């Protein structure tokens, strides 16, 4: 089991957002987590990545059998957890190239590997840039500075491709994307699917799931996963809307 979440509760400023989440993700799987706004999808992603503003009040998260909640943010990243941000932040003056080289070498150091040579690094950049169809010039620019919404999201997928994580969580990567960008992002993600890693896609809409076909779909509602099914669940949600879930819960 790559990721095992048991009865996870988390709050921010005293307000409980996650109210007992249970989730199991195996290597090789793609999961989609859907649900209306404000039900805790992004919070779940943040808690897995280790954002400290969220306080975990109960439950446990095991990653590769290790207690994830005890690890600092950067260690989780070095262990292979990647978060594709919904709103990637700008870092003025720091080029993507420099940023990625620093990140990649930190990860390598953690695993006892030598830093990548300049040539090897550049070759890897070229390869991954093609994957997400980003222009060569983009990587000389400062991280996310002055990027369009689409460029920011492509940059997230590019970074994921560079770091080759074992568990990637994509937090509403589809928001703000036109159809072409959506296709490119999805292609990037699909190219990274393998039997050794897993991907969790967080989204409002079924649209993205036409391109990234999930193995398992979950519905997160009011801080809990209330429904789990195959890829057809996404279509059902699209047709019936989230009210259907709400009503079903009320009648329970």
């Amino acid at each position, binding site marked *: 089991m790559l990721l095992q979440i048991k009865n996870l509760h988390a709050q921010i400023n005293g307000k409980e957002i996650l109210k007992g989440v249970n989730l199991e993700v195996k290597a090789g799987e793609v999961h989609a987590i859907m649900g209306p706004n404000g039900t805790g999808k992004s919070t779940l992603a943040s808690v897995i990545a280790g954002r400290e503003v969220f306080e975990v009040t109960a439950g446990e998260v095991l990653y590769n059998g290790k207690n994830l909640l005890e690890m600092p943010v*950067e260690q989780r*990243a*070095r262990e292979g957890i990647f*978060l594709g*941000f919904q709103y990637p932040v700008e870092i*003025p003056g*720091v080029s993507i190239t420099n940023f990625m080289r620093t*990140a*990649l070498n930190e990860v390598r150091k953690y695993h006892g590997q030598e830093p990548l040579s300049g040539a090897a690094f550049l070759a890897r950049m070229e390869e991954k840039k093609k994957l997400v169809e980003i222009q060569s010039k983009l990587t000389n620019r400062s991280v996310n500075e002055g990027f369009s919404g689409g460029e920011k999201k492509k940059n997230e997928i590019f970074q994921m491709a560079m770091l080759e994580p074992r568990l990637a969580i994509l937090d509403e990567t589809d928001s703000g994307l036109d159809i072409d960008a959506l296709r490119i992002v999805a292609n990037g993600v699909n190219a990274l699917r393998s039997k050794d890693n897993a991907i969790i896609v967080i989204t409002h809409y079924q649209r993205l799931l036409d391109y990234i076909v999930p193995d398992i779909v979950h519905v997160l509602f009011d801080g809990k996963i209330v429904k789990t099914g195959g890829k057809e669940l996404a279509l059902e949600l699209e047709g019936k809307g989230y009210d259907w879930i709400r009503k079903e819960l009320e009648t329970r």
Partner: protein
Amino acid sequence: MADDTRNILDEVTGKEYKYGFVTEIDTEFAPPGLNEDIIRFISEKKEEPEFMLEFRLNAYRRWLGMKSPEWAHLNIPPIDFQSIIYYAAPKAKKELQSLDEVDPELLKTFEKLGISLEEQKHLAGVAVDAVMDSVSVKTTFSDTLAKHGIIFCSFSEAVKNHPELVKQYMGSVVASGDNYFAALNSAVFSDGSFVYIPKGVRCPIELSTYFRINAKNTGQFERTLIIADEGAYVSYMEGCTAPQRDENQLHAAIVEIIALKDAEVKYSTVQNWYPGNKDGEGGIYNFVTKRGICKGNNSKISWTQVETGSAITWKYPSCILQGDNSVGEFYSVAVTNNHQQADTGTKMIHIGKNTRSTIISKGISAGLSNNSYRGLVKVTKRAEGSRNFSQCDSLLLGDKCGAHTFPYIQTENKSSIVEHEATTSKISDDQLFYCQQRGIDAESAIGLIVNGYAREVLSKLPMEFAVEAQKLLSISLEGSVG
């Protein structure tokens, strides 16, 4: 700010100073205190001609009637000028003919500081003048440079061998009574570097001076004079460190630059004097007057400084743009941490027609420090068609430090354009989290972000210096992550 960020900040701001060691070496001192006898003693020690002694005594008499400036945004404890030693020199047994005769302890000291005085081993393309306490220890590549007619030597040697140049230019940009600390320096300065680039010569290598304070209770008062004759070019770098001591030490220097017609001088500084400890004890008081004059038409002077050291910095490298179409530039990164205080900036005085100046200042404050930019842009009536662009940015790390900007703009004609932009920002928790999520720990992330913030200025430094400066920025902020 989140607690974790604050903790990391505290950690970063608490790093140790790397150059705090002391060299045990036989040193000759003047008795502490300041009076005419001490000045005569220094002048005699240096076997100076009469005009130098006169210059010193005049400056001293003016200094006696002056007061320490109080206008800066600094809290300067009273300085007891009678307890300072004004002359300290590592004892040399005889006149040095070659490097083999330099005290190995001295060589080792500079080696430890990353400065090799052995020419064959030295980085290709950099000539060094190494100054320890009051005297120049060794100037490398002098002979090579002499073939181009370039004079690069210690100030003392220049006084002996080129008195006519010294007489003509010394005090012509910074008058001996210019300000309190300039007057003090003019009275007691002991050594420094001298550069003359003859007409039409492009200096083929970078020149650099490395200043080191070693002896206890001494002040360092060096003087640098750079003259670029018509059409000449030189790039000059200055670095400095001092041992870690509990008491404060005074450094009051003067740098004068003269650029004649079509000449260009690029002056870069990496200032890393001991900044004092975490609690604000010890550290160098750095009161420096640096000024250049673009005397001839189409001349250019460019100042680039990376300021990370000193307990107190008071320093305004300036340009007097006298020649028509002359250009002045000031690029600065000033980092303050713990209890450091800095009041630094520039003056651009536009006198010639169509003169241009650019000011890019990046202040970074951490810990409990205070960091001020103070700049004057003055455009006189005659300076028609002149332009200035100023950009002053401040970056705050943590919530206990201060950043201040004091821009002064005076324009006396209507055909000139003066622009000023200023921003203040903080390293956000979001930026740190983003870096950490990619596997970069908070401390490295701060280094990355700060270097990115300062990139515009760092890119102006000569290659040899840029790498050192980048590392220095990260080290200066280690323990301050936030």
